[in-house]
């Protein structure tokens, strides 16, 4: 499990945007607004995919 810090996650809208795209990308994940993190369950390949998806969403994900 890899935890990605997403500083710009502010509201429920942000969370739902992440959830929607991650589901489309078939990722196993959980989003926590409180700690502004996204946890991804998977190998490096999937983490990379998650980071790219975050980029497409306009977020900067930090490992």
């Amino acid at each position: 499990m890899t935890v990605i810090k997403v500083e710009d996650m502010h509201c429920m809208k942000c969370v739902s945007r992440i959830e929607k795209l991650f589901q489309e990308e078939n990722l196993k994940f959980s989003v926590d607004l409180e700690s502004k993190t996204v946890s991804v369950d998977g190998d490096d390949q999937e983490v990379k995919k998650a980071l790219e998806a975050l980029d497409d969403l306009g977020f900067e994900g930090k490992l």
Partner: protein
Amino acid sequence: MITKQYEIKGMTCAACSSAVERVTAKMEGVTKSSVNLTTNLLTITLDENKVKDEDVVAKVDRAGFVATPYIRKSKEERDKAEENLALEVKKTQRKVFVNIILAIPLLYVSMGHMVPFPLPLPQIIDMHHNPLNFALTQLILTLVILINGSKFYSVGIKSLFKGHPNMDSLVAVGTGSAFLYSLVMTIGIPLDSSKVHHLYYESAAVVVTLVMVGKFLEQRSKSKTGDAIKKLIQLTPDTATVVKDGVYTEISIAQIQVGDTVLVKPGERIPVDGIIVEGTTTVDEAMLTGESIPVEKEQEDQVIGGSVNHKGSILVKVNRVGEETTLSQIVRMMEDAQGKKAPISKLADKVAGYFVPGVMIIAVIAAGTWALLGHDLAFCLTIFVSVLVIACPCALGLATPTAIMVGTGVGANHGILIKSGEALETAHHVQSIILDKTGTITKGQPEVIGVLSKDIEERQLLGILASLEQNSEHPLGEAIVKKAKENNVELGKVQDFQSLTGMGIKGKLEGVPYYVGNKKLMDELGVEINEYAQDGDRAAELGQTPMYAATKDKVIGLVSIADPVKPDSKKAIRKMKNLGIKVYMVTGDNKKTANAIAKQVDVDEVIAEVLPDEKVNVVEMLQKKEGLVMMVGDGINDAPALSGADVGVAIGSGSDIAIDSADMVVVKSSLNDVYKGILLSKATIRNIKQNLFWAFFYNTLGIPLAAGALYAINGTLLSPMFAGLAMSLSSVTVVGNALMLRHRALKGEENDERKTA
């Protein structure tokens, strides 16, 4: 490189807008990208060869938002469109004028001999001496008139062949058959001069002319509403005086930027939205609020572009320019509202779609029946033409748009901005209204309700309280300081000020320590509040917040603070209830305060202790329980509920987001205007129904007459010309009736206001 705009849907916070900015800025070929959260617009500079609309839309879609290319007409384009419309109106006016001028001699020639005292006619075109000339004169006059009205034929026949005949089709078929029949008769005159009695040129010509008059009136009223928007735009001056490093320069409004400081002299219109940085004045904001009494403005106050600066010179720091100013947004709202088609007008079109072919069938059947009964072709044709012409539901097309146009116009004059025809329509049959408490029913600003002291003078107590509270930033403290200033109470200097979280404050005034705070603070101090306990409890029961003032060992006074109910709230709520609407109050406040306010204004039900994001659930619950729900609120937290409700009404100086989410905006912050909005909606719908009635009334009444019902009884036949007249009458009635709405819609309401004033 070009600059484009896209409307973005689904953004809720600053993170959203920066996300959209970031993903679009990263695209290849994009050099600049910025998002305005309030207007929901993405402005982007891009290389149009590399980036297509679809690319931007797809990119934004992947980020979880919806983008649509936004084409906003520039001022020049808008001016041009208006100019074109004005030109069009002028052109129609000229044609109508020419036709009327031609129709008069035509009527003289063709009908002059039919009146009881035959009018003289030169022998050369007399029907008895020179029947051919008589016919040709009419042919030429009619031809010009028909050419002037050729639009009916091109549009009408085209749509007839496409299978969805409209009103133009009726006119085209009706007058076309009359004209062609007369033409055939004219050709036959040299052989048989009796054919001269079967000319219907004047019918065709007069019908076309009258219908054109109707169309002209319609066009003109359309360009009139364009004028309203134009007037709004013209409210802002073209230039403004910008102050920079002590230098005053007059520049064009378009060049002003956010952050500039602008000088506004007395009597001038304020050019843009901004905040006063220097000077005090009064401002007439009537164009925005409908409130004719000027509003006092001082430093830090927001002023709005287009309003008139009355008394003093002010320096204004610009905070909104261009399309973002309040005025531009009002203009945009009005344009949007006029562009949207109300469902009821769709109904009118649908009805017309059945009505037109139906009438054509009736015309054919009627003419056919008379033919079978042995009447000649001329008679049957007259029947056919008459039925077609009288049934033409021209007025049907006027019924809804005129009423909605007048309705939104009346609203705007009263500070009620209606964003869509749909909202105007839905508002008339809402079954329940949810009113937000703070800022909607109440003023939204705490005020001192009462000051009480049994030991010292009340003024003195206020002085002590305010002196201490001027150091506090608590809204309750601000209310006390405001009250003291209003009463010209002098404030003293406080030493050793300390804020006691959750309880109150303490500080020394001329060496004497004082405490101001709630019951808990007094308990903590160990002083008895017995003398004041009763009054304090009563204040709390009324939904007020009691605050005690004490020295080290004694309570010296009590002040009660509350967010007071707006003066007209109670009356407005009573009026809403009289309309049979159930009135709810929703608030995040505790039950005690909520019930106290509810009791004062007498709402049907109270829903208290609602968390901000739960308001929309309340709306949904009531929609299930009561049907159509109107929500009235002003805050950002009301926004979801406003969009969720069937009709969302943003009140007064509501936040931009609330205003964006609402269907209706009441500028004056008064609940009575919400009530007026409902009345206006009711009046508009009633007007539309009346219009539809009048549109059909003459037509339906005329059809049997035109079909020859009277002929069967006593031998009179409705001439196609009178059919045309009847038809125009219905258009005139409809337009006239819609215009009456202007005077009628809120008439009783204004009288009512005068009475109470």
